């Protein structure tokens, strides 16, 4: 259901209050982050005075992901956390120097909250106490610990099968698609073995791996009742195919959009009635997603229009204002359970143009 004006206004007020709180934290000499304190010093701006709500963040520079590759880690450690060791999480499939984000508890907070949401959105399909299988990129990514935490917080254990997306990418760019395919098979073989020998009810995987698994076995026949799927964009057609054919309409498909920088955005359940169109809502107020005009990114587009995804992350651990993602999406209306803007039909930036150019034959 579409959110009421009251709900939207309350959410906006909560967002503004949270912005003030986080700005106060990151720009305070006691608790703040060296990177941001230095910036405020250099600019001579009292940021907590100047930023009174979300819109006020416009006085800050747009976050650049390059900073996460270059800056020493210490520059991102809030002074309040100086004595606590941190975890380093890296972004997905990039080769070369990865982006690195520091974390203490954010990943746990995000997934504990997500755990409540899946009970609300998909009652009974991700049973508490059930074992999980995570079939996807582990390694230095936050997903590895996050999924295990999700399983644990719901009272179950988690099995892991790793897929190294950097190796797959390298094999493909090296012109060795056969090696990439053989590696994928190796990954799927392991998943089939685990599913055959252990009782597993819930699965986290990527759309591609779910398809590949479904070519080998009946996923629902193996006991899976809920699949939490993310990592790459999914068109409505892909979602429909995964739900109707790979999952034979017998298991829930919880689609998510997330990355190391944001956390986890959850989508409303999709079905044939809403055309399998995914709309994600950020975990506000800890993260805010907007759909902005690619040419004038300070302006959001109208509802129903395509634009570039802008992400702002606002936690005590990480402050990332107005980062322009390499994705585009349709701006969608708030809905009652999550009364703030949604981002719909997310896809890599420029997909449509690329399609036209590629469609030579």
């Amino acid at each position: 259901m579409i959110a009421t004006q009251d709900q939207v206004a309350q959410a906006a007020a909560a967002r503004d209050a949270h912005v003030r709180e986080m700005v106060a934290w990151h720009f305070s000499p006691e608790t703040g982050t060296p990177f941001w304190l230095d910036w405020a010093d250099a600019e001579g701006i009292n940021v907590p005075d100047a930023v009174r709500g979300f819109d006020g963040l416009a006085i800050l520079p747009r976050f650049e992901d390059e900073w996460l590759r270059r800056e020493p880690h210490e520059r991102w450690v809030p002074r309040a956390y100086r004595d606590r060791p941190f975890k380093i999480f890296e972004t997905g499939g990039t080769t070369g120097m990865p982006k690195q984000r520091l974390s203490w508890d954010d990943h746990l907070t995000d997934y504990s909250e997500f755990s409540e949401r899946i009970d609300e959105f998909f009652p009974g399909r991700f049973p508490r106490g059930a074992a999980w299988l995570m079939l996807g990129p582990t390694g230095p990514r936050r997903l590895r610990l996050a999924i295990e935490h999700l399983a644990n917080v719901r009272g179950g254990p988690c099995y892991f099968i790793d897929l190294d997306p950097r190796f797959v990418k390298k094999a493909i760019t090296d012109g060795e698609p056969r090696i990439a395919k053989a590696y994928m098979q190796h990954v799927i073989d392991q998943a089939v073995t685990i599913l055959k020998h252990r009782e597993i009810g819930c699965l986290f995987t990527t759309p591609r791996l779910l398809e590949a698994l479904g070519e080998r076995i009946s996923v629902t026949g193996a006991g899976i009742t809920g699949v939490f799927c993310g990592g790459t964009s999914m068109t409505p057609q892909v979602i429909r195919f995964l739900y109707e054919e790979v999952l034979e309409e017998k298991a829930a498909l919880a689609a998510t959009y997330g990355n190391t920088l944001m956390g986890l955005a959850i989508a409303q359940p999709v079905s044939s009635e809403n055309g399998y169109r995914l709309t994600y809502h950020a975990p506000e107020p800890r993260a805010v997603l907007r759909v902005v005009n690619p040419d004038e990114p300070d302006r959001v587009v109208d509802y129903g229009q395509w634009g570039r995804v802008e992400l702002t992350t606002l936690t005590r651990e990480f402050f990332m204002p107005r980062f322009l993602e390499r994705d585009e999406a349709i701006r969608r209306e708030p809905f009652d359970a999550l009364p703030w803007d949604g981002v719909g039909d997310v896809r890599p930036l420029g997909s449509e143009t690329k399609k036209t150019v590629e469609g030579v034959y």
Partner: protein
Amino acid sequence: MVYDIPVLRLGEAYPSLDTLPVVDPRTGDTLALVSQANNGLVRRDVLKAREAKAALNACSCAQLIEVCRDAGELFLSATLDGMSADGYVQLLSRTSGLPHVMVRRNMAKIHTVLTGMEGVLRGLTRGLDLSTLDNGVGEQAGVPVSYAAMTDALGVVLPSNSPGVNSIWLPAIALKTPVIVKPGREEPWTPLRLIHAFLQAGCPREAFGFYPTDHEGADSILTLCGRGIVFGDDKTTSRYADNPGVETHGTGRSKIILADDVADHWRDYLDVMLASILDNGGRSCINCSCVLTPRHADAIAEALAERLDKVNPRTPDDPDARLSAFANPMFAEWIDEMIREGLQAPGARRLTRPDRLVVRDGRHYLLPTIVRCESLDHPLANTEFLFPYASVIEAPIDQAIDQIGPTLAATVLTHDPALQQRAIGHPHIDRLNLGPVPTSRVEWDQPHEGNLFEFLYRRRAIQRAESVGMS
């Protein structure tokens, strides 16, 4: 009217949630919304091709030849899936830029292949009794033979340039092999019309997969089918160069070679050269794109240019139209630019009109172009473009014939038996025409870029103990 074109999964219509429009490049009107198959769906279906094969195996080759014959007639003139033959001609002309007369010529070619399927198969199988394929075993020239199907389906990734290329997959149906087709982005019409003709003629529905899809889906069709045919540029086809299960149809670099003994009589062959360059709007890989001669290159180039400079765009319904418009005007611009750049390199001279790219009634055309190149190494020499284009090169044929490189169709003009033998034994010539036959003429009992029968079937040794009877 906008046509909704679904995916066909083992013959069953499946409207996808992803569609791409096919537009009239002149008006921008959307003429069809084509359902797009996601890669996972393609893979899932290709892995089920065995069911499709079983449906075709239930028919005999003789029955399927009958089906082909009926399908040929239906394709040529019937209303199929709500579209009349005239409606098809007009739509295809609007989206491909081919004038009506060329669409009809392509239809006639497809009709010839379908109605003459018995002869086509005789050529491909060298006269095999086709019941051998029904029974798996038989006899040929008094020797027991057995053939095993190498695949459950033939994957075909089609281009958008000319409907005639569909002829290549048609014999597969008569050879009891289902086809899984990815149509060209701008040309869903012809494969779809063919499939509907087959269905109306009584062919089992399961024999046809129609999957408009992206590059990844196309790759799945080619590699998972076990046997695939792909049309494309060098970049596309080079991906499959090392895959014996994928037959590639790329650039043709077809040539006409005049030998010493006939070069002085070059005027006698001017019509053959012109037809080879101009037929089908110069869009086929078997169109001549290079003329090699030991003498008179300047005169030949000038004479060709003089004749080709008289060829102009006409309205699509003009029966004398010889040129095709570009479905994608951007390609016309790219090609024009490539030739312009090529002419900057020393050793090449344009003989045809300077302003190649013309727009008539909102349609983009490239006017026929002849370039006189000093050697085969020039960037404009041994190449081809999607319009009537040829280079003319003077070189001693005795040496040049060894340097021509991969050549899909070669017309070798000579009475010299020794040179004829060299051409016959030439490892790089795919289709050889001895004497004044245009490179663009195709006899369908001759294999084209590989023999489809040998691609789909393998002869296996068979020995039978006397105690084992025939099933």
